[in-house]
């Protein structure tokens, strides 16, 4: 029980950040993490016995977030309207909106496919190595490297296009 609590405490912020990266909505991300934690509680004995419990939880979060993203498509119009006037202050996205460069970066990254976004998030924000990312995303190592390379290249292209970078 204590071990399980320790695992959840150490990984909860990471799960939330990943969910937020995929669904791009603070409330939805919170719900995703809540669902993952409820499901993980029912399997706590198995989770404690895993070699890498955070990877399992990150994988669950990714799946849950993508499912929620798909089911939310019917509410896209409403969400767009809400997002325009009510960007959550707890996210870095409000800061991004106040700065052109960060805002462009954010929009570019959020336009990437969910898998590619997830790989960038786990590498750039969470600092996971390729093996850990592959484990958490169920992608192969070459896929992880490829997604990372493509994501970074797109960011660089954006910077160059806007004449931000030489």
């Amino acid at each position, binding site marked *: 029980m204590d071990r399980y609590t320790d695992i959840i405490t150490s990984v909860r912020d990471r799960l939330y950040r990943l969910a937020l990266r995929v669904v791009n909505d603070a409330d939805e991300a919170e719900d995703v993490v809540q669902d993952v934690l409820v499901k993980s509680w029912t399997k706590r004995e198995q989770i404690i016995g895993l070699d890498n419990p955070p990877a399992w939880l990150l994988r669950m979060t990714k799946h849950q977030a993508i499912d929620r993203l798909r089911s939310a498509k019917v509410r896209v119009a409403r969400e767009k309207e809400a997002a325009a006037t009510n960007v959550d202050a707890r996210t870095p996205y409000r800061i991004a909106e106040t700065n052109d460069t*960060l805002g462009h970066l954010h929009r570019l990254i959020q336009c990437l496919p969910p898998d590619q976004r997830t790989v960038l998030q786990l590498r750039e924000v969470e600092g996971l190595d390729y093996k850990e990312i592959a484990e958490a995303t169920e992608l192969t190592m070459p896929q992880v490297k490829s997604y990372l390379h493509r994501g970074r290249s797109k960011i660089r292209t954006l910077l160059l296009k806007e004449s931000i970078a030489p």
Partner: protein
Amino acid sequence: MTDHTTAEQLLHRYFEGNTTLDEEAELRDYFRGEDVHPALKAYDPMFRYWATAAGVTAPPAKHRAAVQRRLPLRWLTTVAAACLLLFVVHNWMELEPEITGFPVAATVPIDWSKYEVTDPEEAYLVLRDALKTASTELNRGPRMTIRELGELKEVLRQKPPGGRAGELSLTTIKKY
């Protein structure tokens, strides 16, 4: 402290996806510093963006009961429609006549062997009764014929009014 040349080389490898986690940490440190070379200054927002994203923390956990869940209306409607359909079909089937009420005894072969007479005494009695019945029925027809012939003979013997004996009147014939 990473110098400009090293940072430039690391950046090149970074965009190729060939840097290690330690080298990427080195790059972050470089861009966090004050003396970023003007030629690389433009990449600064990217590292700032990732640093900001890394600072996000999950809000305090909310109590599960307080979370207002949306009802899966489409799913519930489907289930309700299926239940209604089952109910209607079940009631309709109950109104149909009971097929099992049809007489099916004829389809079962009769075991005649259990009616077979095996005792000689009983066989004799059965045979006697059968012959007696046959004899009675066979004699019934001739008896009726003889009786009717006798009646006819009697009629022929009677003398009709105004006629000769043995002459049949139309009325007498019609009677038979």
